[in-house]
């Protein structure tokens, strides 16, 4: 008999449950290096098929299984069971509406993403081959292109909790900065114009929750500061 681990999971089906509740499970520790996603899969496949969560790649690249694990946002698929205090408490990402169990409504989050036009904007005619960058120009994008839009940072940001209707949040601002920094993009001015707003950008109070939450080790606070500095340079 293998060792058992204790886990408590947030359950809520708005169509049936009046209130969300925490459900306890016991799961055998099957293998070394087990990840939280393996535990959720075990529950879904062997204990309770109604448990609902998102996942796809299982290796930290798709960004679909962001959740709140023992109070900290992270990706279930790359969060090791070892080192987690038991009973492990798993909840959906904070401040988003729950669709069911660990699945949250990300409509607004991706709507904000769309607002910053996360694609290359260029007035040049499309070149016959690729648009070239020097290695240095390419290196500028390190630290932002790795973002997988999992939302762990944004949903841990108090400014987004209070003013998320207008504040873009760390993930979207990191992406905005990614395009501002891209040497091939020619809409830098419009991008800066769009963000120069007390709520959209400056609502960030440097609380740094975002940086601590990012499972990819990125630093949205630094990206936000870079946008602010770029605006400063433009004005002075």
């Amino acid at each position: 008999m293998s060792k058992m681990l204790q886990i408590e999971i947030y359950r809520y089906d708005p169509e049936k449950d009046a209130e969300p509740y925490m459900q306890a499970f016991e799961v055998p520790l099957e293998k070394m290096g087990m990840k939280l996603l393996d535990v959720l899969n075990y529950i879904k496949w062997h204990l309770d098929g109604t448990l609902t969560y998102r996942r796809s790649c299982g290796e930290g690249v798709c960004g679909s299984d962001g959740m709140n694990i023992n109070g900290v946002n992270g990706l279930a698929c790359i969060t090791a069971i070892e080192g987690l205090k038991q009973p492990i408490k798993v909840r959906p990402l904070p401040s988003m509406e729950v669709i069911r169990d660990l699945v949250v409504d990300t409509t607004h989050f991706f709507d904000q993403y769309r607002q910053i036009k996360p694609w290359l904007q260029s007035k040049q005619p499309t070149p016959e081959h690729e648009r070239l960058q020097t290695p240095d120009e390419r290196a500028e994008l390190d630290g932002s292109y790795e973002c997988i839009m999992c939302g762990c940072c944004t949903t841990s940001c108090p400014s987004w909790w209070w003013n998320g209707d207008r504040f873009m949040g760390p993930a979207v601002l990191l992406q905005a900065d990614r395009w501002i920094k891209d040497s091939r993009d020619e809409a830098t001015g419009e991008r800066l114009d769009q963000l120069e707003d007390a709520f959209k950008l400056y609502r960030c109070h440097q609380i740094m929750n975002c940086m601590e939450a990012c499972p990819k080790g990125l630093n949205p606070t630094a990206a936000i500061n870079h946008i602010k500095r770029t605006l400063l340079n433009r004005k002075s």
Partner: protein
Amino acid sequence: MVKKTHDLGSAHSGFKDWYWQRLSAVVLAVLLPGVFILLWSVYIGALDQFGLLDWLDSFVSRLLHTLLIVALIVHAYMGLKVMIEDYVHTGLRVVLIALMLVMMSLFGMWWLALIWAWGG
């Protein structure tokens, strides 16, 4: 949480707010220690009351004092405004901010009158 954003575009005021808050912070960081040094000097007896008044009376002191009080009010206004915006989400927000602006301006004017009318 709101699902759909009604994008109202940029207010183009964020930069200025941020800039003034930083600028006033720098002025405060430079000038506030001066006030404490003066008070400390009185406390340890290096400066008596008349010495202190001499200090405050000089034209340069009055200028610096004016700068200090203006920076203090700008900084406090910007900081409190952001806090109200963070936590008050009704129409009350505008009323509170306006009220604060009026009260702080009155306070500033009163203080400036003290600085410049004094002993002059």
